[in-house]
């Protein structure tokens, strides 16, 4: 039975409350326009030259939207992949290692993409 204090804190059995749920929804909402932007960007540069693509990615508006997409998608992806592992991987060691791997993967693709956008923006 939930004590009044427990109910007020509302954190539940995982002690994290609805934070992950909310973050997944928040990034989902952000991802909708950002993904549409990505598809538009890729389609409108189909067959474009290297210089043209680089120039467009260096545009501050494009760069900021790309960075927003990368970070929002990386966070969203980490939550989703963790959820799948939590559902299907039950061996303690295997679960711990895969959960760590998911975070490392999300950080790796997120950081690599971020560095690429910054390099393109600053022109180095």
């Amino acid at each position: 039975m939930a004590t009044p204090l427990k109910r007020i804190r509302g954190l539940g059995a995982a002690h994290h409350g609805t934070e992950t749920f909310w973050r997944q929804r928040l990034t989902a909402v952000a991802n909708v326009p950002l993904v549409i932007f990505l598809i538009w960007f890729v389609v409108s540069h189909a067959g474009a030259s290297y210089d043209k693509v680089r120039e467009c990615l260096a545009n501050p508006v494009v760069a900021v939207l790309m960075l927003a997409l990368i970070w929002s998608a990386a966070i969203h992806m980490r939550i989703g992949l963790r959820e799948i592992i939590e559902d299907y991987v039950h061996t303690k060691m295997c679960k711990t290692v895969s959960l760590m791997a998911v975070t490392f993967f999300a950080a790796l693709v997120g950081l690599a993409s971020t560095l690429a956008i910054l390099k393109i923006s600053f022109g180095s």
Partner: protein
Amino acid sequence: MTNKLEAERPLSPHLQIYRPMLTMMMSIAHRITGASLAIGFALLAWWLVAVSMGPEHYECVQSFFGSFIGRALLFAFTWALIHHMLGGIRHLIWDTGTGLDKGTIEVFAWATIIGSILLTVLVWVIGYHRMGGL
């Protein structure tokens, strides 16, 4: 002793017990598209890093994406992305507490399937048109 207890405790039925239904398949598809988009994200990162590294690297990546396998992969990821996005919008609508009745969930399921296929084809038609045909 423990083994016996584990074997006898009631187990909740899993996927293979139920008759396949559209909404159930949509739920599975949402997971599969979501998980596969992780690979799509890695490809996006690879493409961006190649742009940042210079024309030679970019040519290398473009020749992969331009190949038959590359284009097939990109087509599959376009569909997965749009399907996951439409499926996600469906979930966001459900989060408000609306559209949860039997009729509406079927409509949402079909809208996601047909919408994702139509939009994927549309995106590729526009893409090929911009490139001046096949």
